[in-house]
């Protein structure tokens, strides 16, 4: 098994303003593979909470359209996850 790569995978940070918007995220989680970073899982998503989740490059367009359609506040925290994973090793060996 080669190590999993996360090329151009994205991490979204979304701030659902109300229960309806929280449900939008939960619905997206049903039809897309979302890896919740915060909170730990879909069932913890609630209004007025910062929600971070990872999504593949392929699905990220659909996610972004759905968030736009629902006028939701969001930012793309990480645009290319594989790059960030490699950048965390920023201290040279002694």
């Amino acid at each position: 098994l080669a190590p999993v790569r996360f090329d151009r995978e994205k991490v979204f940070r979304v701030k659902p303003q109300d229960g309806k918007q929280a449900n939008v995220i939960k619905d997206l989680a049903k039809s897309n593979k979302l890896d919740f970073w915060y909170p730990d899982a879909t069932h913890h998503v609630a209004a007025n909470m910062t929600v971070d989740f990872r999504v593949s490059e392929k699905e990220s367009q659909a996610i972004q359209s759905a968030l736009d359609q629902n006028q939701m506040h969001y930012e793309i925290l990480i645009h290319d996850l594989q790059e960030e994973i490699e950048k965390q090793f920023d201290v040279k060996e002694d």
Partner: protein
Amino acid sequence: RPGRHSYAKYNNWDKIVAWTEKMVNKHPEMVSRLKIGTTVEDNPLYVLKVGKGDEKRKAIFMDCGIHAREWVSPAFCQWFVYQATKTYGKNKIMTKLLDQMDFYVLPVFNVDGYIWSWKKNRLWRKNRSKNQNSRCIGTDLNRNFNASWSSFPDTKDPCGDTYRGPAPESERETEAVTAFIRSHLKSLKAYITFHSYSQMLLFPYGYTKQSAPNRKALTKVAKIGTDVLSTRYETRYIYGPIASTIYRTSGSSLDWAYDLGIKHTFAFELRDKGRFCFLLPESQIKPTCKETMLAVKFIAKYILKHSS
């Protein structure tokens, strides 16, 4: 040879094992290594006992790395042992603490998951146990403790990231830790578990919004702990009971230890909350560890003074 260990870098499991041996060899009077069990994939679960006392002295149990991808957590446990041994006899607070109490430090709780996050999937969270009747691997060890274990239906899907396991303490890692804590309960006055991310200092309860009986004391300790932490680099932490600060969770080690009788239990959610999440750059490991050390030393000092 596992290569050189560094407190300024993330270390893989082989380096951490070699580091535990080095700490025992370098400080035989202060550090001993206890094997408290083995994981599903037969990796050893090592606890480092830091302190010179016998088993009767007051003690604090600290664990790191219960979730595989939260790499800054094991980095803190390594830093803690390093600083304890390095500053004993030099730093007044650390000397007073180690003259009167012991620390049991579990540098990596979820060893199999940690190894997997290094070799195969950096964003893996659970352990690596196989689940019956499911192709999905792993249990969330922090949902596997017997603390309102089955109260949330959402934790019973083996493919979910917060799968609680087939039964409370079903996992060998959980079983090893609960057995160790039960057998040392008389001396254990506090339990501290380290996670990331989101910069919080949390205490019971997670499984209910009801207040813990000593909530006032826990709040006071958490408030001062986060104040002390922020003195170093002005890093802002929030604090409070899990259920009302973030959300309700079942089966957590924190609630289990508290209900077992350890009345001062805390969970740190380390850096960061803004930009890097689990992928905190190595250049932030040391500042994160240094500021967290201030809070942990305050908590230990409080425990030493206020526990019987």
